[in-house]
């Protein structure tokens, strides 16, 4: 993938300015954003809320890395809808409209022993700082990263660098083990090698990870990503059901005891605006098709729908 680097300059970048950008896969983008206060404060597991453009949505993104020296943070996102696509069209030198953080609580990092870090798809970006911190705290870190195909895996080298062991799975077997992340996890657990599990990825994946570890009573945290608006506990859009108790992902999380989370409800709540998302996406693509590479998966099958029916 082509890389664009920030040109040398005398003055500091503007707050929210993109200083670096590269594509990690056909629809996953890495940007570094100048936000010195956040860079100084953010800890593994915390996130920011940003608006790419005026009148844009507020979306949460995990801080994948901080660089307090030059005041930047790394954000990694998948282009799945209008907002992330629009964000993906911003280049080095452009600025985000707004960025606020760090929000949420840091992941509880301590010495557990053998820690399995289980990441699916974009979840790898969220797990990278956590795997690094877990290892620095003296844990033996086994990372399991999975994707549908080899070319959709992201940050493999980076994960390898921060883990003691790295296991790769792909649905089609194009790299690593053919299968899903829960297969090697089950084996590790059966061999008695796991004391603590932390996971991030598609909700369905986290649900199965939690099922496996619950049987064996292995403490497990899931980093959850429900729909958010303000990100400061004000609206309750991100509420979750933990054994009948309501929690807000933004202020109580984003990491929760995976054995208590109602993943089915979370999956359904994530679909609350699906018709609107399709409509916004369709509109954006019809106006901005030329800004996307022709092989972009969202161009291949654009959808038409009207939420007002």
């Amino acid at each position: 993938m082509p890389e664009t680097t920030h040109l040398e300059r005398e003055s500091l970048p503007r707050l929210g300015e993109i200083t670096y950008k590269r594509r990690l896969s056909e629809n996953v983008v890495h940007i570094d954003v100048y936000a010195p206060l956040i860079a100084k404060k953010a800890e593994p597991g915390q996130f920011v809320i940003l608006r790419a453009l005026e009148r844009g949505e507020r979306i949460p993104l995990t801080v994948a890395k901080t660089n307090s020296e030059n005041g930047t943070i790394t954000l990694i996102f998948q282009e799945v809808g209008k907002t992330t696509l629009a964000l993906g069209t911003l280049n080095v030198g452009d600025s985000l409209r707004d960025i606020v953080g760090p929000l949420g609580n840091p992941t509880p990092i301590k010495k557990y022993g053998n820690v399995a870090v289980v990441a699916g798809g974009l979840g790898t970006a969220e797990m990278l700082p956590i795997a690094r911190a877990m290892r620095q705290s003296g844990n033996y870190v086994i990372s399991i990263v999975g994707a549908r195909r080899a070319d959709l895996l992201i940050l493999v080298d980076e994960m390898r660098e921060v883990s003691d062991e790295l296991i790769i799975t792909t649905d089609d077997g194009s790299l690593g083990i053919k299968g899903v992340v829960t297969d090697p996890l089950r084996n590790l657990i059966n061999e008695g090698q796991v004391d603590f599990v932390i996971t991030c990825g598609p909700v369905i994946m986290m649900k199965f990870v939690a099922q496996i570890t619950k049987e064996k009573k292995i403490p497990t945290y899931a980093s959850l990503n429900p729909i958010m608006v303000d990100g400061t506990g004000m609206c309750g859009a991100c509420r979750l059901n933990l054994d009948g108790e309501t929690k807000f992902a933004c202020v109580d999380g984003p990491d929760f005891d995976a054995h208590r989370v109602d993943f089915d409800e979370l999956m359904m709540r994530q679909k609350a605006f699906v018709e609107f998302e399709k409509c916004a996406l369709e509109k954006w693509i019809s106006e901005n098709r030329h800004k996307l590479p022709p092989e972009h998966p969202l161009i291949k099958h654009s959808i038409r729908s009207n939420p007002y029916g």
Partner: protein
Amino acid sequence: MDETKEKRDDTKEERLKRAKELAERKKREEAGTEKPLVGLPKKERLKIQRQPMPEQDPMARILNFESVVLGYPADIALLEAQRCLGCANPKCIPLCPAEVNIPAFILEIVKGNLEGAYAILKESNALPAICGRVCPQEVQCEMECLLAKKGPVAIGRLEQFVAEYMLDKFEKEPPTITRYTPTKEKVAVIGSGPAGITCAADLCKLGYDVTVFESLHKPGGVLVYGIPSFRLPRRIINAEIKTVEDMGVKFMCNTVFGKSVTLQDLLKEGYKAIFLGTGAGLPSFLGIKGENANGVYSANEFLTRVNLMEAWDFPNADTPVYVGKKVITVGAGNTAMDCARVSLRLLGVKESHIVYRRTKAEAPARAEEIEHAEQEGVIFNFLTQPLEIIRDENNWIKGLKCIKMELGEPDESGRRRPVPIPGSEFEIECDTLLNAVGQSPNPIAMRSIPGLEITKRGTVVVDEESMQTSVPYVFAGGDITVGASTVIFAVGQGKKAARGIDRYLSAVREGKIKWGEKQLKAQLAVSA
């Protein structure tokens, strides 16, 4: 003798007498020892009726988000202003939390000096255009007006008239606002809602170096995320906040106190006092089964989506809001009315219902809000208590199971307690449910101040006069001290806090106390 003749004779004498008096009065006025007398004689003034507020037609206005009230035209404002009798001991001023000199500003309207009227408003209240629109005047300044029986002077409408006239004028010719140069300590104001802005403006006038920290991307707090634009147009909020910015107050948006900046950061940067005005941003839920269904929103979420994120203009604005055809709002406060009325204006909505367990008489909303909601066709279901949210297999709300209530004995609030009528359960179908049953203070900011005393209800404990908290250099005001209240209440507490902070820092400067030490109550006593 002919009666008219007699009268005319008397008038002639009177005229002479009056002319003499007027000449003397004019001399005194010129010498500055007497307030000028303007407008109609008192007798004529008493004949003027309270002037109604022109409004958009209810059927037209539910198709837009434009202001419902259109504001007094200048001639009507002048007429209404002349109703004020300029009492020697005005009852209105003590009832105004912002301490506005009401008769004085109304007198300036009568004189045709709107700049002067605006200056008087601004002297006590940084947000007159906003307060004119959203204050519950009927239970404040207008309540004990001498004319209350026949219709009190429409103080709120006059305030709105003056402030909006001036803000419009500022658009054409930018005002020469006094910019205050800070000569005193740095003060951090947390939250840019009405309490924070008021406190910041007052401190700025006193010479403090004030920065307001706001967590959202726009300043205004509840004014921008909570109150809909048809009650409070955005351009008025923006213009009014700009006047505060122009005075010299700095605003930093996208900054969450306790996350982006901590107490230690602020102290390190040399801030000597902190005002907490973070409001009541934590939504309450009903605590009934099914509340995590899709289509169930807290009032905060729903209003934030529509007001702050402009979901009413989706897809031109990116944030969506789903409402469907039939919306139920639970609660009967101002927020509930806002939810019900916003719903009506969204595309596709056919019916907007209010469900409330008591009756109209107990509803906490302003009378005008309920009236407006009724005019617009909001359907009220009084004496109705929600029991359970019915969901479909995809977690979407289908309906609300309720029970009928009747009023029993008065409870501790003095209102008659609603009691369920056994066997009266029934279901209302709906596509969306909005929870407007109250908010409490958001704990993020409070948690990050060690030693801050907090009540069981999650509000901050303050000294009622100085607004000082248990941490000497931290002051608080607005909803954070009481739970959800009104804009003007927040303005009043913001003013008190500014005075409290000034007294505290002055005492430190003068060496009477050490910074960080709790001040004695006597040292904080107000010198009225």
